[in-house]
């Protein structure tokens, strides 16, 4: 199951502790980890009293130099923002798996893509985060390893952004082919280190934020990832992420069979957004059609980064529900 794969990936990446609070559709990650801990005494687990304790527990462990992670979704994602924004401020390599569930408050427990804005920008901050939106089981595995790698290398909090469908899907993945155990691991809170996140003067914190922003911009191209599926020279480019991206990819094949010039640009990192690649690939398309299980959350990211493009932008929004490839085919055909 997807959630089991996530726990395996974290273990293979070199995580030693999972902190977590049960919340559907992420709970199996915590449960799988608990089983790992029975057999492997080098691993630990803490089921905390809430998501804030889970997030700050991860931070504590990372400060001690031990890779740790947590998983949540929905209202848990909201509470987790408390810890995440401190990880942004103190440059702590916190890794979080977000299994998106229904949007708006408690909602449904299984699916939407309505936590994009929250996961990207949910702190009182500029969102210096690394976010991988996965679209299949293999990506759940591969990008969990990558999340640990990139978090400890660049010291921004990193995320695997998935959803309940991916979490509960059953299937096979290739494990352990590449040795991707996390590197650059060492204690952060050591002698001589006195961290604060409270500042007195506007000038002090202003300078710090600008430094962070400059650094984030400087390294972003080393982190950005995307999938270009037949989008080069396509007249119509679909823009979709996560599991909707997987359906859109299948739709592209069908549409091409029907003679339409269609491709898919699938951002894998939502932050940093693969802006340069998107500009190059999408500049000549007539239409860009954004498809998401939300109202404009992916589209907003895109528009913010690519302001000034002259293509026609069409937004296909379906908060709460997923998309089948057939449905996407019909929708794109209707736009000609």
């Amino acid at each position, binding site marked *: 199951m997807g959630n089991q794969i996530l726990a395996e990936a974290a273990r293979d990446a070199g995580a030693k502790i999972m902190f977590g609070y049960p919340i559907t559709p992420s709970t199996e990650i915590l449960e799988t980890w608990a089983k790992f801990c029975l057999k492997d005494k080098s691993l*630990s687990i*803490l089921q905390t009293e809430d998501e804030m304790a889970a997030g700050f527990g991860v931070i504590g462990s990372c400060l001690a130099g031990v890779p740790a992670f947590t998983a949540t979704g929905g209202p848990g994602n909201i509470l987790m923002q408390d810890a995440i924004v401190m990880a942004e401020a103190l440059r702590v390599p916190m890794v979080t798996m977000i299994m998106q569930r229904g949007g708006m408050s408690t909602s449904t427990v299984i699916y939407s893509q309505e936590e994009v804005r929250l996961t990207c920008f949910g702190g009182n901050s500029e969102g210096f985060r690394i976010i991988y939106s996965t679209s299949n089981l293999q990506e759940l595995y591969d990008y969990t390893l990558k999340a640990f790698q990139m978090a400890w290398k660049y010291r921004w909090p990193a995320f695997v952004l998935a959803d309940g469908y991916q979490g509960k899907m059953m299937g096979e993945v290739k494990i352990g082919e590449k040795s991707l155990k996390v590197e650059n691991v060492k204690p952060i809170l050591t002698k001589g280190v006195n961290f*604060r996140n409270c500042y007195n003067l506007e000038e002090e914190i202003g300078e710090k934020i600008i430094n962070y922003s400059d650094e984030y911009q400087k390294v972003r191209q080393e982190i950005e990832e995307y999938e270009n599926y037949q989008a080069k020279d396509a007249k119509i480019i679909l823009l979709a992420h996560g599991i909707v991206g997987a359906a859109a990819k299948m739709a592209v094949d069908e549409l091409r069979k029907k003679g339409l010039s269609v491709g898919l640009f699938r951002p894998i990192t939502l932050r940093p957004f693969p802006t340069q690649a998107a500009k190059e690939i999408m500049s000549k398309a007539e239409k860009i059609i954004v498809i998401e299980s939300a109202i404009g959350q992916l589209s907003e990211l895109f528009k913010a980064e690519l302001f000034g493009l002259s293509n026609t932008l069409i937004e296909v929004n379906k908060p709460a529900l997923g998309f089948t490839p057939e449905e996407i085919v019909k929708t794109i055909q209707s736009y000609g």
Partner: protein
Amino acid sequence: MDNPRFPNCYKADSKPHKFCPGCGHPIVLKMLGQVIDEMGIADKVVFMVDIGCSLLAWDYFDLPTTQTHHGRTVPTAVGFKMADPGKIVIAYMGDGGAYAIGLQHTLTACLRDNPITTIVVNNTLYGMTGGQLAPTTVDNEITTTTPGGKNEFTTLKGPELLRTIAHKEAYLARGTTDRPLVLKQYLKKALEAQIKNNYAFVEALSFCPTNWKTDAQKTIERIKDLERIFKVGEL
């Protein structure tokens, strides 16, 4: 008479400290510093502070120190200790961080018997933000959010509450900045308890002339009054 010395584990360049004149924090911190020196554990101590007046201690010691978010010092300490059990981790907070916004973390760490040492400096109100109601505000006490005098709810007695859920080997005590050397003994035992892998908690009842709006004499009178409500001793 010897001049009293700075604890060795102090960070000299952060002195004079930034606490208010007459604040209890510097007394607690000096006692803690002396204990760390005397026990010879400076290379093992990790110090974590909350948001509130305790945040001013972020550069107090030449010890690995971090601020956390308000109320989140305890879970950060728990996570650190789980990752590196050889360190002696201290969660240092005020009564707002420990008993209001962070109450469930305070309680749960005790319930789980996490081997960290929690130190709570209790001045019966929220100091840093200007003197609002706290769970430890006493009856009829005037605060900025109870300008007519508090009568909303019972006063929270931290160590007593924790004793009802603590492991029998956990160390719980309440000292006062009015009697620093007694407080010092409790702090020492609280660190020794962690070394023996037990949960430890010390509340330090503290004066706060700035927010109590009391002169020196009235400050001392007030803390002696409070000591009738918040009993000093080990639990």
